[in-house]
């Protein structure tokens, strides 16, 4: 299948220190890729570079074959490249229904409408409650975000991303901060993602990674040191060393 998402020789340095060092990867529709690596490896930076939130020093990003490196973050979202955030960024005073409705309206070019209310737009309400229902959030759809549990907020992050109908979805640690007992719902949500969507997930929870991903990419110090099947990743010497190295460094620092 032809690629929907290409990254070519992406580079970024912060004050001389290479944080993304010549990273290339390619994904096809339906791909389930996990991006792992020790803390500070440059995973979030990589997401920020491809979404256009950060400007790369060099390299290229392509969506559906179109080079988007010079297109701003908003333009990339409109072309189907959507991300979620490592720390949820939701509107505390708004309800899940409002979040999802806003995403739907924005996707359809209706977010600038100055009259009417989404509650009286049957198509929007239907889609929003179906989506929230699938994620187990329908009963909470009219509560304020500040009143719902963090695990549910993480699910809402996914719902907002899905409401935008992306072609490529970048999930930055979708289970971060959620108690182990609650990760089941998130895992289910990940399993239920649309089959033709290309998904790149950053995650630390290796159980989640192994159950979700068909392909694992390991980033260490800004460089891809492994790109292959989940079965092979644990056997890879370079990967082990990178993780051991980072643990050794961490214990030195501590």
């Amino acid at each position, binding site marked *: 299948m032809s690629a929907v998402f290409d990254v070519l020789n992406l580079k970024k340095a912060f004050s001389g220190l290479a944080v993304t060092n010549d990273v290339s990867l390619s994904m096809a529709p339906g791909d389930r890729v996990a991006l792992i690596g020790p803390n500070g490896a440059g995973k979030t930076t990589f997401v920020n570079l491809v979404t256009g939130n950060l400007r790369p020093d060099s390299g290229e990003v392509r969506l559906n074959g179109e080079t988007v490196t010079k297109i701003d973050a908003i333009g990339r979202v409109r072309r189907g490249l959507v991300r979620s955030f490592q720390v949820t960024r939701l509107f505390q005073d708004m309800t899940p229904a409002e979040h999802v409705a806003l995403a739907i309206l924005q996707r359809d070019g209706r*977010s600038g409408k100055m009259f009417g*209310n989404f*509650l009286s737009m049957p198509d929007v309400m239907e889609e929003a409650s179906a989506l929230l229902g699938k994620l187990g959030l329908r009963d909470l759809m009219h509560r304020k975000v500040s009143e719902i549990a963090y695990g549910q907020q993480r699910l809402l992050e996914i719902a907002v991303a899905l409401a935008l109908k992306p072609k490529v979805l970048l999930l930055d640690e979708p289970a971060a901060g959620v108690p182990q007992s609650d990760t089941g719902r998130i895992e289910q949500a990940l399993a239920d993602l649309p089959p033709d969507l290309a998904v790149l997930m950053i995650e630390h929870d290796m159980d989640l990674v192994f159950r979700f991903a068909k392909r694992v990419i390991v980033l260490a110090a800004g460089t891809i040191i492994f790109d292959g099947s989940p079965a092979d990743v644990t056997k890879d010497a370079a990967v082990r060393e990178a993780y051991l190295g980072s643990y050794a460094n961490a214990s030195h620092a501590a």
Partner: protein
Amino acid sequence: MTARQNRSIGRDLIGIGAIVVAATIGYLLFPDNLALLTRIIAIGLLVLSLDLVTGYCGVATLGHAALFGSGAYAAGIAAAHYGITDPLLMTFAGILGGALAGLICGVVILRAHGLPQLVLSISLIYLFHEFANKASSWTGGSDGLSGISPDPLFGTFEFDLWGQTAYVFGVVLLLAVFTLLRLLVRSPFGMLCRGIKEDPLRIMAMGASPKVALIKMYVISGAVAGVGGALNAISTQVVGLDSLSFTQSAESLVMLVLGGTGSLFGALTGTIVFMLFEDYVSAANPFHWLTMVGALLIAVVLFAPKGLYGTAAAFIARRREKRT
């Protein structure tokens, strides 16, 4: 129709009813001072307009009278220089003038955030003020723009000395603006703006442009302030440089904070309380009135940080929650 919608339409009707009741009470209490009440409405429109960008969108500005004053001058110049003396057309001129000023201010102010944004807004109001001062052949400079004599409303109701026509005209304008703004803040666009206020980066990650939305809101805000400015020009038949001043801008922000930001009722409550207080205290003790206003404001900010209306509304909501 859902219960949720019925509730918000119910609140709209209550709001409209509350404005009518307040306007009637005002008329009965101050029949000899309708000019003051009309001015409260004009400034109320300015504070509503400020609430749109500050309360709903989180833009910091101390120069919002630029929009109000531009509306006032547009209506005044239309009448004094172009013979456009129909009050509805003058109001329309005010809307255009305010919207244009809103566009200019929005484009400039939205280039920055936080303190630099505040500084830009202050610079702008001084520029507008100075420009109006220099263009005295158009604006009358520091003498003010006079020679504004609006026609009778609908050819029948004269803008006379008693100010009844002006007052009723003002109340009707306020009701119209209030109704439109209720629709606006509940619309998808209103929801988008609330999102922008809380987290513009998140809105961008949804593919929407905060910049474009905020500039639209600034233009709308200008139109609303322009209605207020036009009302002021029509009712007082002069336009002074003070309508385009830093003081007026700062006072309108004080009124907004006093009433409570991010709510249309908050904006109106703040205006009414501030201006009645000002009128009363400055008559009773002209030397200390600013001290009194300062004390009032400190009390509100310390003890009711959501403003008078915001605090009252939160209190009622809490009690209602306890009962259910």
